[in-house]
């Protein structure tokens, strides 16, 4: 999967969690939580969504590595390569 495809997948999952958000305006280097006003339940659903669409199992201790869109793409690229 290319970075672009991963990014698209991440955005798709985010849109499901925050359907009212305008993701075109998301700052890729700022915290997703703050920008979309998502809480821990939303975040867990985000992790579950990534699991379903990309097949990655993200352990809880790695949650801090997924705070921005750029970080998510980087992290998921790595875990997909190491699979």
């Amino acid at each position, binding site marked *: 999967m290319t970075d672009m495809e991963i990014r698209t997948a991440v955005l798709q999952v985010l849109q499901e969690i925050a*359907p*009212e*958000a*305008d993701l075109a305006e998301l700052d890729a280097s700022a915290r997703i939580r703050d920008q*979309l006003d998502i809480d*821990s*339940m939303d975040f*867990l659903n985000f992790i579950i969504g990534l*699991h379903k669409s990309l097949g990655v*199992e993200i352990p809880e201790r790695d949650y801090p590595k997924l705070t921005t869109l750029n970080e998510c793409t980087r992290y998921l690229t790595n875990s997909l390569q190491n699979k």
Partner: protein
Amino acid sequence: MNEFVMPKLGSDMTAGTLVSWRKKPNEAVHRGDIMAEVDTDKGVIDIEAFQEGILDKILIEPGAHVPVGTTLAMIRADGEVSAESGSSVKAKTLPVASQPVEPQTQESDANKPPLIELSLQDLRRLKISPSARMLARQLGVDPRQVKGTGRDGAITRDDIDKAGRATSPPAKKSAPPKAPASISTPGPAAETPRPVVDALDRAARMRQAIAAAMARSNREIPHYYLSTTIDLHRAMDWLTEQNEQRGVTDRLLYGVLLLKAVALALRESPELNAFWQNDQAELQDDIHLGVAVSLRGGGLIAPAIHHADLKSLDELMRDLRDLVKRVRSGGLKSSELSDPTVTVTNLGEQGVEGVFGVINPPQVAIVGFGKVGERPWVVDGQVMPRPVICASLAADHRATDGHLGGIFLTNLGRILQEPELL
């Protein structure tokens, strides 16, 4: 013959709009079945049956806005003769603040959805003025189907008005409430305009409902407030360990531990699990925790997780996830809105230390949680870093005293020291 009425979902609901029927005449009805969908300040709610029988006759058609207590349909007992064949049933319509409603024969097409729902995104995209928006609501016109002739393709009142004439002829009389005179000219067909709900309108109505309930609470309820700081290290360590072993889809949130602990602590302080009604506290047998869920567009809903004290953490987690999803995307049930016995609000996500809650009447208590934060904590004379949380109780002083509230919070702290027993 039993009446199926517009239920009161929350202490300040006065009326609701019937969106659709989910049962047909002569269909069997069981307790808990979804009978109809009703649009309220809290969104579109699935209304459950609380009796058994057969749906005899529908008295109110989709699109009608009727007060709480209005008979929507009749349910006959098994073996009872249908009202159609005998004496006629008369709809009991309560004195209304809104438009009079008459049962209407409905042949409207089943293929078009009865409710037009516009999201914030739709409204942003459409370029529609507030007054055109309001007219669309009155006429039952879907602005997404209207071509704007205004500046930059903006949709004007004229556009909506024209679309309204073209698609559905105006109702035979009295038409929609507050509609301009130009559209109430007599038309050939009688049709209730399709309900249009837009996100801004919904948010405004929810704000009004919250305002009414909270103003009443503050006016009538003498609140007292207590708080305590609870060491969560055992609970958090236990949770981390659990989640290490669990797959993504089975993981627990700490909020679920808090809910279960509150429910168990309420068992030991049943006086807090009560409704203030008829000038006295009426203790409730079951513990239904109202979980405050905020909406991103503003506002909040606190629907119930039923029998929270009897559920496992996994069941509570499943219920909570399901509830949050339905709060945000629709499908809440009438029982979930009408019967929470104590509300729990967790504002820790926003980073605050503590909560001073406002009780949701007729409840007599609300439990609040702040954030889980690492703090220096003295354990056996040693200062240790520990994750702690501030738990608070706002309670109705008519129903209980601070002494009892204090015992409740102390028990809550004790219960959270033994996470494996939750």
